[in-house]
């Protein structure tokens, strides 16, 4: 299925926006060429309009869909699929280590060495107020990265709400995978304090593809809950306590050789917020946080005939950190942000193998790595004239990577004899200019110099198997940090009933980090059936370039049309096509609304990706696909209560298809009927 409620939400977004007036979306999109914000729930926006250049979508009802489906509908975002759950979001074909994913500004790192648990898998739309997308170093960035990243903003309890008690209850069902979910949220709100709790339970069986074939090991089950509370100390000072827990159970990954018996995340924080409108220092936010992820990966559910050797591969990730962000304004036209942050992340991953004959075997695949990071960030936004806005910023990070246990050091002694402690110093700078030529046309352009430290896997992986290219990977403690020059130009053209946005971008990488084959005469793969061993290396340079075009048109009172188109191209210094680069993709939606009823038809297509390199990157080509989805919905208001009913038919023509970023190219879901109900009080 593509989305169930999300269409309706798209529809609702659109309607709301139309009501709000057309200029809002348009101007919002013009300003935010380097970041955008997808609002999931209504939030109060503080600060200045100039500084909050991101009010893109406003909607409240897509809390039932998987976060993956929500991400899928953001232009320029693609998902690496390994199962029907926990797909890994990437931006513009940049790889996951080139972007920085955070939850409410908190650094969290997945515990799975097979990328089974991207950070997005630990949050639910029900927890979130918005998803903030950054496309490179900018004033909203949380840490050093090449290509920006995602910040999942947690939904906070709201002080002084209209009702002391309010909430929602919802449920949904999907016929294809017999997927069931039930969710709810409740908020208690007073003037001085408020508490909000939310929870969702999901259970899904195996899905069926467009050929009517059951995809085994595509099931999942999870229970997620979050509690957020706020206490007003006085009219300017607030304390927030947030806790989020996500317990995944029995999650299948048909593209991998292993599944998850459990994946548990505990994410907590205490924040202090100081706000005073009109003062120079008008916002100061500080947070201390900790999170822990426990991931149990095994192959106990797989039949003997598919398994060369049974194994367990558990892993853990724990992070402590803090940040403090100060927002200052000087007059009406000059804004400054000053940020300080630090964190420390420990990763441990191990593997125990059980041969039919012989002793069991044990190894550390991530040998107790620690990364301690401190960063300082200064950015500046100035309105030079009414029409010209200049944003600039500079950020410095220090990254210390090390191994915490003797066993970890001993493990790596077999592949590396130098000092395992590594220092990286990162400097990120950007400048961005926005210019409004006239009421219809505005343009924007920017340059950034970005750097990122190699991640724990790239430094210290120990025979980590990658299903994508079928190689075991070794880390490289001598690897250099990756750098890039980022360029972007965008234009925004709007008429009364039409908006056209075009963005063109290029990332020129230096010391691009990727895996290169090691000689098979010296290095034999650990994983049975693997093609060999690769080690992370720096390639001299590589490039990713592309464009996004968005089009929105209010045809008449009843009809609305939107089109999102994204394209990326990547190659390395030897003109080999980079891997996991999404082909040209287009999502087109037409919405018809009348008397509280809404109908939408969505057409999604991606071109074939034949620009691939098999020899070096081990990638195969992917054919095109065409997909049609239908949906309908209605909202009823009975007294003070609201009921939402949605029904959708995804993949109407039951087309068998997969996308280029799908590992092992396993077909996605075939035709799927979805229903959802929501009750708001």
């Amino acid at each position, binding site marked *: 299925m593509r989305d169930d409620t999300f269409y309706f939400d798209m529809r609702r977004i659109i309607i709301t926006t139309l009501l709000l007036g057309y200029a809002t979306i348009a101007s919002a999109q013009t300003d935010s060429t380097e970041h955008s914000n997808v609002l999931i729930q209504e939030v109060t926006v503080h600060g200045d309009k100039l500084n909050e250049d991101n009010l893109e979508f406003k909607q409240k009802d897509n809390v039932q869909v998987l976060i993956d489906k929500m991400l899928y509908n953001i232009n320029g975002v693609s998902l690496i699929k390994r199962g029907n759950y926990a797909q890994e979001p990437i931006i513009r074909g940049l790889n996951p280590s080139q972007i920085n994913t955070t939850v409410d500004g908190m650094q969290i790192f997945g515990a799975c060495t097979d990328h089974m648990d991207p950070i997005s898998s630990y949050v639910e739309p029900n927890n979130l107020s918005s998803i903030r997308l950054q496309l490179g170093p900018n004033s909203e960035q949380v840490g050093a990265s090449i290509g920006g990243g995602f910040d999942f903003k947690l939904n906070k309890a709201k002080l002084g709400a209209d009702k002391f008690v309010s909430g929602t209850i919802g449920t949904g069902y999907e016929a294809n995978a017999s997927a069931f979910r039930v969710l709810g949220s409740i908020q208690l709100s007073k003037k001085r304090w408020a508490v909000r709790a939310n929870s969702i339970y999901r259970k899904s069986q195996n899905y069926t593809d467009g050929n009517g074939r059951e995809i085994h090991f595509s099931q999942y089950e999870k229970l997620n809950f979050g509690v957020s509370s706020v206490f007003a100390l006085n009219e300017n000072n607030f304390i927030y306590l947030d806790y989020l827990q996500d317990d995944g159970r029995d999650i299948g990954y048909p593209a991998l050789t292993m599944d998850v018996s459990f994946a548990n995340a505990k994410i907590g924080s205490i924040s*202090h917020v*100081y706000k005073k409108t009109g003062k120079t220092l008008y916002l*100061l936010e*500080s*947070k*201390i946080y*900790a999170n822990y992820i426990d991931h149990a990966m095994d192959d106990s559910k797989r039949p003997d005939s598919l398994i060369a*050797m049974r194994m367990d591969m558990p892993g853990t990730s724990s992070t*402590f*950190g*803090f*940040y*403090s962000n*100060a927002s200052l304004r000087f007059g009406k036209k000059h804004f400054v942000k000053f940020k*300080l942050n*630090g*964190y*420390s992340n420990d990763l441990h991953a191990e*593997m125990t*193998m059980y*041969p039919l*004959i*012989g*002793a*069991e*075997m*044990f*190894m*550390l695949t991530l040998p107790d790595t620690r990364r*301690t990071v401190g960063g300082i960030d200064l950015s500046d936004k100035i309105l030079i004239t009414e029409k010209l806005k200049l944003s600039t910023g500079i950020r410095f990070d220090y990254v210390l990577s090390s191994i*915490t*246990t*003797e*066993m970890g*050091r*001993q*493990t*790596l*002694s*077999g*592949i590396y*004899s130098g000092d395992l402690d590594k220092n990286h110093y990162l400097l990120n700078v950007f400048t961005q200019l926005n210019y409004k030529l006239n009421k219809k046309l505005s343009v924007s352009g920017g340059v950034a110099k970005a750097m990122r430290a190699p991640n724990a896997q790239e430094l210290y992986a*120990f*025979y980590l198997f990658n299903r994508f290219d079928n190689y075991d990977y070794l880390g490289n403690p001598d690897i250099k940090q990756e750098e890039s020059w980022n360029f972007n130009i965008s234009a925004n053209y709007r008429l009364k009933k039409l908006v056209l946005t075009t963005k063109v971008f290029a990332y020129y990488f230096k010391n691009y980090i990727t895996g290169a084959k*090691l000689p098979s005469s*010296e*290095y*034999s*793969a*650990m994983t*049975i059936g693997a093609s060999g061993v690769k080690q992370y290396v720096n390639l001299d340079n590589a490039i990713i370039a592309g464009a996004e075009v968005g089009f929105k048109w209010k045809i008449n009172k009843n009809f609305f049309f939107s089109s999102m188109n994204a394209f990326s191209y990547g190659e390395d210094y030897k003109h080999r096509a980079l891997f996991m680069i999404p082909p040209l993709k287009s999502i087109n939606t037409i919405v018809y609304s009348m008397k509280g009823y809404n109908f939408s038809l969505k057409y999604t297509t991606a071109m074939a990706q034949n620009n691939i390199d098999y020899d070096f990157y081990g990638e195969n080509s992917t054919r095109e696909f065409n997909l049609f989805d239908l949906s309908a919905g209605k909202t009823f208001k009975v007294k003070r209560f609201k009921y939402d009913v949605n029904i959708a038919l995804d993949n109407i023509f039951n087309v068998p298809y997969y996308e280029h970023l799908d590992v092992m190219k396993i077909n996605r879901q075939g035709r799927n009927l979805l229903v959802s109900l929501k009750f708001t009080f």
Partner: protein
Amino acid sequence: MKKIIVGVLMSALVFTSCNKDDDETVVTTPGTPAPTQVEIATATTSNNETVTLYADESQLSTGYENMYVTVKDASGNAIEDATVEFAPLMDMGTMQHACPFVNPTFDNTINKYKGYVVYTMSSMGGTWTLGVSVNGNLATFTLNIADSPTKVVGNYTGTDGVTYIVSLLRPVTWNVGMNDVEFLLHTKASMMSFPAVTDFTMVMTPWMTSMNHGSPNNIDPVHVGNGHYNGEVNFTMTGDWRLHLQLNQNGTEIHSDAFLDILF
């Protein structure tokens, strides 16, 4: 700004409080005496000296064993300057043979005479005795040699028709990663004479048979004196490992695959 400083201080606390969580693994040089030696038996020489035999563990097993001896005179005073010699013997009924060994010398650090014996078979096949002579006066011990859990000593007949005995120095603690490894190489000159081989080169290939893979960055053992060959072996994981040794003399292959097995 005050908030920022508080934030920094608090997180500094968080960081420092969770700093060291090392779990130490003990790395030993192969053949180094165990921290405490275990008494095996006591016997008396014809000259009334009391000879006590020690080993690294209470159960001796096939392969290389450090053997330790203390000697006391009739009045109970330790003798530390005697000439102590070993004479291991396997009596199989129909035939008798000895095995590779080195005579003990006094080691101040443990206050014992220390030598080694490479037991080439277990007591299943006959009776092992170890004669210990102190200045020519003999005391004899009957030993129970168990089979080692893995093959740590092997007889291999070379292309030159000579029998070679390869053994692995013990005790040794194996870890995942780089390990010092030490072999002894002896040749069988007669049933009673097993001189050390000092002019060979070795090519070592560790292999995990249950998974059919090897490991990189191993360092081939080289002769360091008295038939000892030192190298480094890289174990990428725990489990069953086979150490394949190609034995060469003056560039000529004498044996293509003399192997020993390790389990940890």
